[in-house]
């Protein structure tokens, strides 16, 4: 019989929960991770809905996973392999295409074909964004200070951020200030003229937010995605061997090796509070686990409005969590294929199939897609980011066959009349017919398809609102405001209860920083 006494209990076996648990176990603590589902991984899971065809069910690329986490938890030894995703091709409506290859000369040559001016601007834009990313990156690793606090701890942290900011040139500071406040459209119009280029670049500014390219604040999201980093070098997105479930399987394996207990089918009912402190959790099946600390790696709404009785929390904090924006805006269509999609713009099997294919002909196209979502409809002409994992990792599909992953925006969580099977089917059909315009053989190649709406993300992965970042990357929900003012240091108003998920600083993506930082704060407080 397993004991139910732990030093720490972590709620949720997504990547952040597993990382937090592994770091605590590494420091010698006895840790248990509780997972509601039958599988670990959270939103980073690989599923096989059709025999032989495997999909990264929700999140599907890796770029921000912190290199120090990979090293600390020895993830390569536990099977982590991140394969390159070397290009992005945007099919155009006139039958041409725009490609960005992973080679500077080729990309420049390709863009030059469409706009010599943009070809040069793109070089400079890339350097400005990379420098800004480099400038902001160290801040991601720091616990956000509370600027209103006079406590020595916060003062010291403020000083660190301040010292860092001082090392930037005045020009860089202006650029960063602008990036933090502008819309993606304003930023890109400052630099470029070619619509498919602007459309494709702007897409990174709206992913996972309920905003359009013209909404202020989207320039920062663009930068957030720009910080793709693999092995410590600035790079683009990568694809995890075995899908994104491969990431969480590696972390889980590392955690187990460090002595962490991982329990699946273990749904948490409530955090137990004794003497004003979190002292364990009660499971839905009636079991109780005692622990010195509890760490939630669920979304902010679940963590504070569901697991904890509200009487234990300050009213203002509860209000702030209620107001935290978690509007899901995207869906996913995973397609099993008997043959590769044949794109009219680049016929036959070719390099395009090894990278991302982006349906983003212009910023206006994406803004119009947003317009429909704003008023409760899914976009009839959506932005789609496709990859064909079986072209990168042959183990993802049976020989000769393929799987295709389509990230689709916009699909509002709050669709008019609510999501049902008919609407899900219609959404899937919209995506297929959109792709069909560029790859006419797609329909006959379909062996099976899985359509995932924001409601499904909520139901399956347990993320309130189905927002892929556990809360939109809006400026008022970042840094020392994530998830709430004064509570961005992974502690919560309930002593002994910590919060380390994508809804905490520094935000979403398969990054793992929140889980690691939360564990570090727990260890600092350990008595």
């Amino acid at each position, binding site marked *: 019989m397993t004991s139910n006494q732990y030093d720490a209990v972590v709620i949720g076996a997504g990547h952040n929960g597993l990382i937090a648990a592994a770091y605590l176990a590494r420091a010698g603590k006895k840790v248990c991770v509780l997972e509601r589902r039958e599988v670990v991984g959270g939103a980073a899971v690989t599923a096989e809905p059709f025999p032989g065809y495997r999909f990264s069910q929700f999140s599907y690329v890796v770029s921000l996973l912190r290199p120090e986490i990979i090293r600390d938890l020895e993830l390569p030894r536990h099977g982590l392999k991140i394969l390159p995703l070397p290009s992005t091709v945007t099919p155009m409506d006139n039958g041409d295409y725009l490609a960005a290859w992973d080679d500077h000369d080729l990309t420049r*040559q390709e863009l030059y074909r469409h706009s010599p*001016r943009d070809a040069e601007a793109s070089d*400079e834009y890339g*350097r400005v964004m990379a*420098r800004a990313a480099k400038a902001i990156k160290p801040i991601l690793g720091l616990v956000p200070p509370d600027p209103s606090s006079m406590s020595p701890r916060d003062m010291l942290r403020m000083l660190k951020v301040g010292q860092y900011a001082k090392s930037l040139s005045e020009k860089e500071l202006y650029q960063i200030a602008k990036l933090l406040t502008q819309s993606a459209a304003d930023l890109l119009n400052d630099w470029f003229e070619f619509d498919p280029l602007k459309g494709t670049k702007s897409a990174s500014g709206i992913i996972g937010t309920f905003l359009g390219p013209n909404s202020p604040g989207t320039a920062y999201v663009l930068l957030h995605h720009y910080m793709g980093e693999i092995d410590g070098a600035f790079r683009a997105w990568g694809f995890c061997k075995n899908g994104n479930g491969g990431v969480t399987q590696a972390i889980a394996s590392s955690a187990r090796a460090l002595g962490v207990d991982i329990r699946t089918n273990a749904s948490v009912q409530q955090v137990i509070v004794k003497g004003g402190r979190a002292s364990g959790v009660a499971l839905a099946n009636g079991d109780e686990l005692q622990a010195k600390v509890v760490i939630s790696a669920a979304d902010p709404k679940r963590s504070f409005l569901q697991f904890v009785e509200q009487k234990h929390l300050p009213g203002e904090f509860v209000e702030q969590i209620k107001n935290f924006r978690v509007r899901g805006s995207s869906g996913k269509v995973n397609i099993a294929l008997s043959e590769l999609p044949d794109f009219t713009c680049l016929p036959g099997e*070719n*390099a395009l199939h090894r990278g991302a294919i982006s349906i983003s002909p212009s910023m206006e196209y994406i803004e119009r897609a947003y317009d429909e979502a704003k008023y409760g409809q899914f976009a009839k002409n959506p932005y789609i980011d496709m990859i064909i994992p079986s072209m990168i990792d042959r183990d993802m599909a049976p020989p000769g066959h393929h799987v295709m992953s389509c990230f689709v925006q916009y699909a509002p969580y709050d669709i008019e009349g609510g999501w049902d099977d008919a609407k899900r089917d219609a959404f899937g059909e919209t995506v297929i017919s959109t792709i069909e315009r560029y790859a006419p053989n797609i329909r006959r190649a379909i062996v099976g398809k899985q359509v995932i709406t924001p409601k499904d993300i909520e139901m399956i992965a347990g993320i309130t609102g189905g927002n892929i970042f556990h809360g939109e990357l809006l400026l008022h929900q970042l840094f020392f405001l994530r998830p709430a003012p004064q509570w961005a240091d992974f502690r919560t108003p309930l002593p002994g209860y910590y919060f380390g998920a994508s809804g905490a600083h520094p935000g979403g993506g398969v990054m793992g920083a929140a889980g690691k930082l939360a564990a570090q704060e727990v260890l600092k407080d350990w008595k």
Partner: protein
Amino acid sequence: MSSLPQFQLKHTPFHERTSNLSLPQNWRRWAGHIVVGSYDLHVEREYWAIRDAVAMIDVSPLMKYMIEGPDAARLLDKLVPRDIGKMAVGQVGYTGWCDDEGKLLDDGTISRLSDNTFRLTSAEPSLRWLSMNAVGLDVSVTEVTEKMGALSLQGPKSRTVLNKVCGKSLDKLKYFRVMENTLAGRKVTISRTGYTGDLGFEIWMDVADALAVWDALMEAGRDYGIVPCGILAMDMARVEAGLFMIDVDYTAANHAWIEGQKSSPLEMGLDWAVHLDKPAYFVGRRALEREQAAGSAWKLMGFEVDWAGMEPLFAKVGLPPQIPAMAVRGSLPVMHEGKQVGYASTSTWSPVLKTYIALVHLQRPYYEPGTKLSMEVTVEHKRLHAPGKVVKLPFYEPEWKKK
């Protein structure tokens, strides 16, 4: 898997010839093109053609811009530290250009083809920078990189060979001047310029005429020992000539990650091309005035390794000195009494001088000619320091270069 035409680096207009002649097929990348590294299995023959006969180098990847209109001179005068007003028609001027902090963005040549027509060459794409600064001026900027082929004919016999195939004699064309001419009946412009520090010419032509010009020169040069020459041999010659290279010997200010990586034209020894007495404002002027007054913290200089001082380092392990036979683009620390005071950015064996030389960046006050310093050499996996001295650039300048 079909290979896309777009998935290839660009070929120069001479590719049909160069690709058949290169024995080692050691392609190098240059501004989005592939060019021949060397034609022979050893670079010596190509190198000695530059210094003793005539070498033909495909330099087509150079970025080329036509700047035309009543304000053409004004635009250039605003961009570069050189006084464009003092350039006569038919003159070519080498110059660097800066950002507002007076740090080098790029370097190249400006040819004044007529009062209101200039051709600028650069290493990096510059269309955006030129267009941005042309706002409000009556000038047009056109990129002609892909429309023109360029051959560099370098070496003491280069003039003789050209005179055999050109409509007009090159005898009167002075150093850093340009002329219209015909070559094998094709229209060309010829400038007395190059990247080797020897007697030499660069021939600019329409891409349609490229192969005809190549063939005519090879034919005319046969009796004078003409050798097609790759960029590896040119790299050795340019170090001897004290000529630096962007992204090797300096980092373009807009590519730099940190301030310390940037260089000013004064630090790079271009004082002679920075005309602070010119009337017009130019980008970076104020910063360069300040630097001029205060003196530069760094200088690009030459460094000659003292062979006799280096020999014992190798002799100790039973070896003669081992020096790479080609130019090495890698940083080597330069020391003064055990303390690092600079670094070499390109080093090479100089076949003509029989000396191991390097382009070095030195901190004040160590950049005075004659200063004794030492440079890192690797002896059987051990990092040691070979003695040597700071010298003025260029290392090598034959009397016929400017004659």
